[in-house]
């Protein structure tokens, strides 16, 4: 049950959250010491005459160092749909930079989140139902170990293995072969898939155990539920008890976890993208932060914030749909 009142309150909460996030997004990159003009240009040209620097500063909108002035400009431009021009990818606009990076990230993270949540729920359901056995204890301990491994460490290990020992089996960097031109041809698509295998595998390997353990824990608690005893007494086959009674109830908290994970898909996988030189949002963010590209950082943060707010919203609605007890008022 979702009422109109609920939608109204939720929307106003979302707007307040967005405004706060906007302010923080704006301030954070500008609190990093340094000047973007020097950071970007002096690494390229070593020396620029002062009047050139002044010129660039005014082009970047930095001629007035007052944060308040810049914030006003930022908000005004934002409401005109203008996220500004990227300093690093000058003269590309921020929207353009995001548009070229986002599809790669959506593909990489969308696929790996889908795979890992699916595997996670299925494996978690199984080990949760068989909890207490020696096998289950071993698998759970293994998963706990896997979730605590950093993404980039696995990524580096894979690169090492596939660069040194299993050479030419799988590409270890980039999103597609440099000899190909992006197009909808079989050769290009195949190249994209091959390039994504290692990053996706890395992401799945480290994130599916998290879903599994959450599912396992909620499954274990199901064993104590009286409706499970009744189902057993009723003579329901075990397969159906697991599916319709235990897993159906255990999946509720996990569903929220999964939807939120999809919300973070747009954020990219910072370390994995950097290690595999994958041209996604994580990669763009890395460049933006290290070169003090304020507009690009702001743009990416804004996109992430909005998506996460929307994902929260969707997860609430999905929860109400999955659990008849939840009423969203």
């Amino acid at each position, binding site marked *: 049950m979702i009422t109109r009142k609920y939608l109204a309150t939720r929307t106003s909460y979302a707007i307040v959250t967005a405004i706060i996030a906007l302010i923080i997004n704006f301030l954070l990159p500008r609190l990093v010491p340094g000047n973007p003009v020097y950071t970007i240009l002096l690494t390229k040209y070593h020396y620029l005459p002062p009047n050139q620097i002044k010129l660039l500063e005014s082009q970047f909108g930095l001629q007035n160092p007052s944060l308040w002035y810049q914030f006003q400009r930022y908000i005004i431009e934002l409401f005109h749909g203008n996220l500004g021009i990227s300093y690093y990818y000058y003269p590309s606009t921020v929207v353009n930079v995001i548009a070229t990076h986002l599809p790669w990230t959506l593909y990489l993270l969308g696929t790996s989140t889908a795979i890992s949540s699916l595997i996670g729920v299925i494996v978690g359901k199984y080990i949760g139902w068989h909890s207490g056995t020696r096998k289950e204890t071993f698998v759970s301990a293994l998963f706990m170990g896997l979730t605590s491994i950093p993404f980039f460490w696995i990524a580096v290990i894979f690169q090492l293995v596939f660069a040194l020992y299993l050479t030419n089996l799988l590409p270890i960097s980039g999103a597609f072969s440099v000899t190909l031109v992006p197009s909808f041809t079989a050769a290009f698509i195949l190249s994209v898939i091959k390039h994504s295998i290692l990053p996706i595998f890395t992401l799945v390997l480290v994130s599916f155990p998290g879903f599994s353990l959450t599912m396992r824990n909620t499954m274990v608690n199901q064993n104590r539920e009286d409706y499970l005893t009744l189902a057993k007494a*009723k003579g329901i086959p075990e397969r159906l008890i697991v599916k319709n009674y235990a897993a*159906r109830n255990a999946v509720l908290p996990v569903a929220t976890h999964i939807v939120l994970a999809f919300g973070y898909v747009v954020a990219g996988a910072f370390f994995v993208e950097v290690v595999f030189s994958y041209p996604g949002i994580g990669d763009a963010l890395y460049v933006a932060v290290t070169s003090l590209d304020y507009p690009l950082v702001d743009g990416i943060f804004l996109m992430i914030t909005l998506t996460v707010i929307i994902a929260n919203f969707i997860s609430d609605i999905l929860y109400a749909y999955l659990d008849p007890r939840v009423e969203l008022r």
Partner: protein
Amino acid sequence: MSFPILSIRKLNTVFHTPSGDVNALRDLSLEVERGEVLAIVGESGSGKSTLGFSILRLIDSPGEIVSGSITYHDKDGDVSILDLSLPKLREFRWVNISMIFQSAMNVLNPVARIERQFIDTFEAHNLGGDYQARIEKYLQIAGLGKQVKKMYPHELSGGMKQRVSIALALSCEPSVLIADEPTTALDVVVQKEILSSIIKIKEELNLTVMFITHDLSVASSIADRLAIFYAGRPVEVGSAEKLLKSPQHPYTAMLLSSMISLNTNRDAFLKTMGGTPPDLRKPIQGCSFMSRCPLAEPACGTYDLSPGKSYGEGYVECIHPGRMAREVEAVD
């Protein structure tokens, strides 16, 4: 001549705990007669619920049925419940023996509509016929309207949930209904209603009811026979009428004298029973009630329980049956 529908012989159920095995049922033997209401009465930990769960083999780890036999006397022959294979056990449950659980609030699957929880049971037992009509029929017997079918458990009150679980328990037309404290979680008014509908249904459907309760007054109002449980065994079994009038076991007598009735003297102190039941982790020699019994004497410690009698008609596990009741009366 008796015609039992369930014969329980020398049943031992233990719970393995870190501090030792708890012998929840100790060499328990009991007969349940066809068509009767047998009330199992006892305090917490006396093994009454464990018996109900043992009959349907619902005892889960760390519990275990270690020995004994439970025989279901079907029209077409005897079924040894403890020897059934798991698939056979699954088919046996509910269509022969069903159960109403104590925890009415949590026995229904919260994410499924009521009708779904009936239909999956019918499907599990390959019952034919019109499912909807069947659901409506049993909901009506349990005192509920058919609109309940489409509802979710959280939309029902506690009493309605318990009625749904009664309807569920009857829906596959079993011969035996085990009611494990079906009214404990409910308020007195609803309790009364539920009890009278169980009795009404019992008459209509020719059921055998095993009614588990800690409430002697509830038991005496509905049962044909009573089995008084203490420390994992029945210490006295007999017809409700006889047992209430002249209790033979000191425990029964003391329980009865601690009951309040409308003609209890208002100024008198309520009689209570001192002490606690024995530790079931340790083997018990002789009579289990000895430590709390005012009539205890050395001979009680060697009282022999081993014959493992089956209690069809009256039975009492005491070396001086009836004496306590006479003494209580003398004091009054």
